C-alpha cells in the first residue's frame, strides 16, 4: 500500500487532482455549513435581488407606491396615499407650454426610480429610458424627485398617468460574492449546493451501478452458457444506446427528481461494470488458485466473492472513478436539458442552463462560475481515474 502511494505521488497532477477531488467532497459534505444562504428555501428568495452582478450587496427593497395621477388645468389630483408612507404627495406643475414636471413631496426623499406609465401618444419623459414595448418611462434616481414630461405639440389640458415611485432600497450587510441568478438566489450558495448534488449523484449512481454490474458480471462469468449470453446481450443492448438518450427517455417518463436521475444513470452505467468484471473474472477463473478452491469444494459464492472478486477490483475501481465523472456530467447534461432535477433545487447543470438564457444580455456570472466548478470537478476526477489506471496497467510497470 505504501508502495502504491509512492507510485501514485510520482505524478504531481494526480496529487493535485486528488486534493481538488477531496476539496469538492468536503464542499459537498459541509455545504449547509459553508453556504451563506440556503438556496432551496424558496421563502427566502426575493425578486428584488434578481440578476445582481458579482459582489453586490443584498438590499431590502424600498417602498413602492402606485398612484394614478390626473392633471387637469395645471392642478394634479391623485388617489389617497397609504398612511405612514414616506411620500406625502405627488405634485405636477407646468414648466412651460409643452412641459410638465411630475414629482413627489417632500422633494428630498431618496428615490430609486420614478416611473411614468400610460402617457397619451405624443408625450414622453425627458431623460427617461422607455420600455421597449410598453408606454412606460423610467427615470432612475431622479434629481429633486422630479420627472419632466414633454409634449411634441401643445400640451393637452387633461392628462392622466400612473406614477410608480420607488424609494431607495436599504443595503444589508450581506454581499452576493458571485452575484445572483434570475430569482435572486445567491450563486455562491447555489454552486455549493450544486456540488453537493453532483457529488451525491456521482457517488450513489456510480456506486450502485458498480454493485449491480459486478454482481451480473460475476454471475455471467461463473454460469457461462445461456445466462452469460443473456446478460452479455443485455449489455450489448445498453451499450448500443447513447447514454444521454437513455437518460432523457427515462426521465421523460418518470419526471424529475434526484432519485430518478440516479436511477437513469444506473440504467446507463451498470453495463460497463458487468462487461469489465466478466472479462477479468473469466481470466481469473482459469488460474490455479481458483482450481484449488474448487477442489476444496468451496461454494461458488465464496469462490467468486472471496477469491475472484478481489482480483477484479483494481480494474473496477478505475472504472468506478471514471464513471463518477461521467455520472456527474450526465446529470449536468440532463439538468441542462431541463429534465433532471426540479427547478427549485438547481444542480450545476441547471445553473448553467439558467444562465445560458442570459448569455445574450451580458450577465455572464450565472453560467460562468458553475461552469468553471463543473469543469474543475470533472477534470479532477478524470485525472485521478487516469492515474489509477496507469498504476494498474502492467505494461507501464517498471
Amino acid at each position, binding site marked *: 500500500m505504501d508502495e502504491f502511494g509512492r507510485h501514485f505521488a510520482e505524478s504531481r497532477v494526480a496529487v493535485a487532482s486528488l486534493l481538488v477531488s477531496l476539496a469538492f467532497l468536503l464542499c459537498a459534505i459541509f455545504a449547509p455549513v459553508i453556504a451563506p444562504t440556503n438556496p432551496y428555501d424558496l421563502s427566502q428568495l426575493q425578486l428584488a435581488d434578481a440578476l445582481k452582478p458579482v459582489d453586490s450587496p443584498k438590499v431590502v427593497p424600498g417602498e413602492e407606491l402606485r398612484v394614478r395621477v390626473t392633471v387637469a388645468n395645471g392642478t394634479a389630483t391623485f388617489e389617497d396615499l397609504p398612511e405612514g408612507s414616506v411620500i406625502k404627495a405627488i405634485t405636477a406643475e407646468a414648466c412651460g407650454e409643452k412641459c410638465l414636471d411630475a414629482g413627489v413631496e417632500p422633494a428630498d426623499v431618496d428615490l430609486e426610480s420614478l416611473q411614468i406609465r400610460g402617457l397619451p401618444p405624443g408625450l414622453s419623459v425627458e431623460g427617461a429610458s422607455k420600455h421597449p*414595448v*410598453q408606454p412606460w418611462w423610467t427615470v432612475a434616481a431622479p434629481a429633486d424627485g422630479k420627472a419632466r414630461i414633454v409634449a411634441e405639440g401643445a400640451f393637452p389640458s387633461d392628462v392622466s398617468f400612473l406614477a410608480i415611485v420607488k424609494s431607495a432600497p436599504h443595503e444589508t450587510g450581506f454581499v452576493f460574492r458571485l452575484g445572483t441568478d*434570475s*430569482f435572486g438566489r445567491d450563486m455562491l450558495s447555489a454552486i455549493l449546493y450544486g456540488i453537493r448534488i453532483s457529488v451525491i449523484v456521482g457517488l450513489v449512481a456510480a456506486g450502485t451501478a458498480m454493485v449491480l454490474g459486478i454482481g451480473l458480471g460475476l454471475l455471467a462469468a461463473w454460469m457461462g452458457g445461456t445466462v452469460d449470453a443473456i446478460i452479455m446481450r443485455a449489455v450489448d443492448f445498453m451499450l448500443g444506446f447513447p447514454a444521454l438518450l437513455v437518460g432523457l427517455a427515462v426521465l*421523460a417518463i418518470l*419526471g424529475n427528481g434526484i432519485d430518478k436521475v440516479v436511477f437513469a444513470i444506473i440504467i446507463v452505467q451498470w453495463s460497463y461494470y458487468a462487461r469489465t468484471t466478466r472479462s477479468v473474472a473469466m481470466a481469473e477463473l482459469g488460474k490455479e488458485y481458483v482450481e484449488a478452491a474448487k477442489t476444496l469444494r468451496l461454494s461458488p459464492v465464496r469462490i467468486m466473492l472471496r477469491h475472484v472478486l478481489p482480483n477484479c477490483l483494481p480494474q473496477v475501481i478505475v472504472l468506478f472513478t471514471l464513471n463518477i465523472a461521467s455520472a456527474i456530467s450526465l446529470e449536468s447534461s440532463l439538468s441542462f436539458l*431541463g429534465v433532471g432535477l*426540479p427547478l427549485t*433545487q438547481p444542480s450545476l447543470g441547471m445553473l448553467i442552463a439558467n444562465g445560458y438564457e442570459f*448569455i445574450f444580455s451580458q450577465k455572464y456570472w450565472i453560467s460562468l462560475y458553475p461552469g468553471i466548478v463543473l469543469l474543475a470537478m470533472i477534470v479532477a476526477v478524470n485525472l485521478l481515474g487516469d492515474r489509477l489506471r496507469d498504476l494498474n496497467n502492467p505494461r507501464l510497470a517498471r
Partner: protein
Amino acid sequence: MEKTKFGLALAAALSLAPISAKAEELRVGLAAIATSVDPHFHRAGYNFDLRENISDALVYANGATGEVEPRLAASWEITSDTNWLVILEPKAKFDNGNPLGADDVIYSLCRVRNVPNSPGLYSGFIETVANVTDAGNGKIMIESREPDPNLLRNLSNIGIVENPTGRTLTYDDKTCGNDSWLDTNGFNNGTVSAGIGHYRVTKFTPDVEIVLQRNDQYYGKPAHYDTVVIKALPDNSARIAALLGDSVDVINSVPINAVESVQSAGKFHLSSTPSTLLIFLLADQHQEPTPKVSDADGKNPFLDPRVRKALNLAINRNEIAETVMGGMAQPAGQIILDGIFGHNPDLAPYPYDPAKAKALLAEAGYPNGFSLVLSAPSDRYVNGAQVAQAVAAMLSQIGLQVTLETFPRSIYFTKASDYEFSLYLAGAAADTGEGLSQMINLAGTRDPDRGWGGANRGRYSSEVTDKHLAQAQATLDDAEREKLIQAASKQVYEDDGYVPLYHELGVWAVRNGIQYEANANLINIFYTARPE
C-alpha cells in the same frame, strides 16, 4: 457624364438586385411549429398558424383587427335565428383545378370528428352545428342547434379540404355515413392537398422545418413572398442567435432577456400586441385525494374555496408581469383580456395579500400549510418555467411546501389530461377572437363530447357558470350576450376557480424593411407580411 450616370445606375441596379431577389423569401424562426399539415389534426396554437396560411376556412377571424373577414365564404346572411346561408367563393379552386363545392365543406366538417389518431380534435368548434346542406348554386345552408352568434368565428378554425369520396355526404354529428377518411400522413407527405390557401407546403419536416410556396392560383389578394421557410427554434438562445446571425428574418416569442440585444443590434424592430393568451394556474377541483398534494389528511385542499382564494391572494401579479416577464405581460384578474368581447370591467384585480392568504389557509384547517407539487411545462410559454418558479416562491411564502416539476410540452399536456397534476400552469388563448369560446374552453365543465372545458384540466365546474355560458351561446343579441359572458366571468372570479396570472404580450422581432403583423391570437400570418 452620361457614362457616369449609366455607371451609377448600373451599380445601383446591381446592388439592388440581390436584395430584391432575397426579399422574395421570408425566413421565420418559431418557438413551436406545426405538428402536422393536416388542418384538422390537432387543436393547438402552433397548428392554427400553419392552417391559416395553407388551408382557408369559410372566414377569417382577424386577430389584429378583431373583424370577421370573408374567405371561402364570399358572403353570408342569417335567414332565421338558426339558419345561415353562406355563398361560397366562386373563384376558389383546389390545386387540381376543381372548384370549391358544397360537398367539400360538408366533407371537411364531417372529418373534424373523424381524424384518425388525433391528439386533440377541433370538434369543439363545430359543436353547435346541427346540419349543413347543399343549397344549390354554390350556396350552403348551415343550421345551428340553437341561435349561435359565433358560428362563423368558430368555423374560422376549420380548414376546408377537397372531398375525395365522389359523393356528397349527409351531415350528422358522427361519421356522416362515411367510414374511410383522409389520412394525416397523406397531408404530411404531400400526396393530399391541405385545401385552398395563400401558400402550399412543399416540404414538411416535423420539429425542424416547413417550407411554403406561394399559391399563384389563389382567389384573393396574393401573398407577397414567393417562399416562406419556417424553422423550429424552440430554444430561446438559438432563436435569438439565428436572428442576430441573419439566418432568419422574423422570430416569435422574443425572449425577454434578449430584447436589449435585439434593439442594440440596430437592424430589427419589435412588433407587439397584447394577446388573448392567458397564463393561469389551475387547481384540481375534482379528485380527492389529489395526486400531488401530501400532508393534507388525504383530502384535496383545493376543494375548499378558501384555499383557492388563498392561492389568488398569494400571487404578486405585478411583480411577475414586470420583473419575471420584463413588462411583456399584463396582470390578469379574469380569463378574458381587456378590450376583448366579454371582458368584465367590474372585476377588480386580485390584491396581493400574503397575510390574508395565510389566514385563509389556517381557517381552512391548514395552519402549517401542506406539501404540494406545482407542475409546469418547461418549453411552452415565454419564460414559463421562470414564472412557475416565481409562483412556487410566492406560494411557499404563504406557508405551503412547494416543489416544482417541469416537463417538456410533448408529455406535459398528456399528463395534465390524465389528471396527474394537482396544481398546474398552462395557457389558453381566445381562438375565435372573442371571449365566449375562451370561457367555454377554460371555465365550462369539462365534457369532451360536448366540446366544453377542453383546457379545463383541473375540472373547475360551476352550474351557474355553465348556465350563463350556455345561455350566451344561444343569444344572438351582442349586448345581452356580453352581459352573460361577464356574469360567467364574475362567477369564476367569486368561486376562485382559476388563478389567472397574466395575459402574455405577443412580441415578434422583425428585420428592418419587413412589415410583419402582430396578431392578438399569437398566430403567425405570413401572407400579410410585406417589405416596407
